C-alpha cells in the first residue's frame, strides 16, 4: 500500500503532520496527555503565557452558544518563570514540537519573554497572540492596530531565530492587510483566526453572562468565517497560514488546507473530544490515499475557482 507524507513545514519548523493543538485549549499538555499520546501530534501550542502570572477574569468565564462557545478566560496563566520551571520539563518528555504562545501588554514584554524563552530547546517556535479579545491591556488594542502589529512583529523577529508566528484577530475589516504587515516585518507565518468578539446576556438578571461582558466566540459556528479569513489572506499575501476556527473533523482540516492553510489547529474540539487528533490524522491519511495525494502539503491552497 502506498504511504502518504503528512509532514508540513512552517518557516524553519518541520512538523510530522499539520495537526496542532491550539493555544488555550490544551493548557500545557499535562491533562490532555491522559487521553492522547502527544507525540503523534504535529505540535502543541501552549496556553498564552505572560511575563508575570495572570489570575484571569472572575467567573463566569464561559457561555455555550449555538454551535459555539464564548470564553473570557482573561489569559489566566502561570507566568514565564513557573512555565519554564514547572511546565517545560513535562513537555520535554515527548517527542513533539512545542510552540510557545505569548501574550503581553507591551512590546517590551513580548521581547523580554522571547529573550528568556529563546534558549529553551524544546520550544521550536513562538506564536504571538496579538488578538486576545478578553484583556483590557494588550489584546485587541494591538490586534486591531496595523502599525502596532507591524512593530511587535519586527521587534520579536529581531530577538529570535526561531519560527515566529503571529496570531491574527478576525475582528478587523481586512485581515490580509495584517498578514501583509506581518510578512513585511519578518514573520514566518500567521495563525488565523483567534476568537470572534461576542456576548450573551441573562434576560432575567439583565446582566452579561460573562464577568468580562464580552468574550471570544469559538467552535463550529465560526468555521465559515475562519475559512473566509484564511482564503482572503491566501489570495493576497505570500505567507504560510495556520488555519484555526471550528475544526471538528478531518473533513474540516482538508477544507482549511484547500483554502490555503499549511497547518491547522484544533481548539474547542479538545474540550469535547481530547482524542480527536487520532481519528483526524487517520482521516487525512485515507483521504490522501483515496485521492492519490502523495504529500498532504499539496492540498495547501489547492482550491479551484475556475
Amino acid at each position, binding site marked *: 500500500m502506498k504511504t502518504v507524507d503528512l509532514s508540513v513545514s512552517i518557516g524553519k519548523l518541520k512538523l510530522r503532520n499539520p495537526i496542532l493543538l491550539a493555544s488555550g485549549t490544551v493548557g500545557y499538555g499535562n*491533562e490532555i496527555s*491522559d487521553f492522547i499520546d502527544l507525540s503523534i501530534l504535529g505540535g502543541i501550542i501552549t*496556553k498564552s503565557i505572560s511575563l508575570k502570572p495572570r489570575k484571569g477574569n472572575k467567573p463566569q*468565564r*464561559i457561555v455555550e452558544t449555538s454551535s459555539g462557545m464564548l470564553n473570557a478566560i482573561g489569559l*489566566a496563566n502561570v507566568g514565564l518563570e513557573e512555565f519554564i520551571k514547572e511546565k517545560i520539563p513535562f513537555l520535554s518528555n515527548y517527542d513533539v514540537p512545542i510552540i510557545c504562545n505569548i501574550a503581553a501588554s507591551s512590546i517590551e514584554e513580548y521581547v523580554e519573554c522571547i529573550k528568556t524563552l529563546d534558549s529553551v530547546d524544546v520550544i521550536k517556535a513562538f506564536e504571538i497572540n496579538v488578538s486576545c479579545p478578553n484583556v483590557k491591556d494588550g489584546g485587541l488594542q494591538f490586534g486591531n492596530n496595523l502599525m502596532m502589529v507591524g512593530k511587535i512583529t519586527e521587534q520579536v523577529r529581531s530577538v529570535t531565530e526561531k519560527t515566529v508566528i503571529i496570531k491574527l484577530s478576525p475582528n478587523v475589516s481586512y485581515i490580509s492587510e495584517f498578514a501583509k504587515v506581518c510578512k513585511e516585518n519578518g514573520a514566518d507565518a500567521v495563525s488565523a483566526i483567534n476568537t470572534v468578539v461576542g456576548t450573551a446576556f441573562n434576560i432575567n438578571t439583565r446582566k452579561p453572562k460573562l464577568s468580562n461582558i464580552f468574550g471570544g466566540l469559538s*467552535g463550529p459556528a465560526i468555521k465559515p468565517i475562519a475559512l473566509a479569513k484564511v482564503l482572503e489572506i491566501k489570495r493576497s499575501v505570500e505567507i504560510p497560514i495556520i488555519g484555526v476556527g471550528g475544526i471538528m473533523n478531518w473533513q474540516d482540516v482538508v477544507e482549511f488546507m484547500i483554502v490555503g492553510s499549511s497547518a491547522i489547529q484544533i481548539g474547542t474540539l479538545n*474540550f*469535547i473530544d481530547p*482524542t480527536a487528533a487520532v481519528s483526524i490524522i487517520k482521516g487525512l491519511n485515507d483521504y490522501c490515499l483515496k485521492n492519490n495525494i502523495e504529500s498532504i502539503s499539496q492540498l495547501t491552497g489547492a482550491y479551484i475557482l475556475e
Partner: protein
Amino acid sequence: MFIVNSPVVELSEIQKAIFLQKIKSPEIADQILPGQFLNIKVTEGYAPLLRRPFSICDVEDENIFLMFNIYGEGTRILSCKQKGQLLNILGPLGKGFNYNTDFDLAVFIAGGLGAAPFPYLTRKLKDKKDIISFVGGRTQSDVIKYNFLNYLVATEDGTEGFKGNVIDLFEQEIKKYLNRRIKIFACGPNGMLKALSDSLKRLNNLTNNITCEISTESAMACGFGICQGCPIQDANNSEHYYLICKDGPVFNVNDVVL
C-alpha cells in the same frame, strides 16, 4: 480519567420530574468515588456543543447512576435515551469527598438536586459512621430524599418539615451533637453553601470539632482542567483561583470564597 461509551440500562422517575439513569459502565464503576463527576456527551453530533457534567449519584456492581431533572436541551436529550443507547462518558473527574478521615458523625446537607451525590456517599459510610442528613428545598416537591438515611426535611414554604432554609434547621439540630467529631458534606445552591459557611463561623465559637466539605458548581467546557473555564476564588491567596473541575468540585469550606 478516560472516555467510554456505555449503554443506558434504564431511566426511572424517582419522584415528579426527578430522573435516575442507570448506565452499565464497569470501567467507571470500578474507579469513581463519591463527589467525583462525569462529563457526558448527550448527542452523537455537536448540538449542544459541550459535554454536560453530572455528579456520580450511586454505583452498584457494574452500573453507575445519574440523578437529574430536565433543565434544558441537554438533560432533555439525556432523558430521552432508550435502553441500550450509548452515552459517551468522560471521567471520573475531579476530587471527591474525603470520607475516610477521622470523625464519628457524618452530616449530609443537600439542597434540591444537591442530593445527587449522597446515595453513593451514604453507601460508602453507612456501615462505618453515624449519619444524619438535612434535606431542603423551596417547597415539598423540590425535596429529594432518595436513599438518605436518618434525615430531617426543611422547606422554605413549610409544605414539609421545618419551615425555613435547611441551614437554619441544621444549625438548630447540630447543637445536640457538638460533643462529637463532626464532618459535614454539603451540596446545593451557592446560596445554601454561603449560608452554611456563615453558620459554621458561628458554630466554631462553640466547638472546633467540625470540619466541612462542600461540592461546588460552575459552567464548564472541558471538565478536566484545560480550558480554565471554572474558577473559584482561593480563600488563602487572593491572586489565585482554584479550578472547580480539577481542584474540586469538592473543597474544604475554608479553602474557597463562595
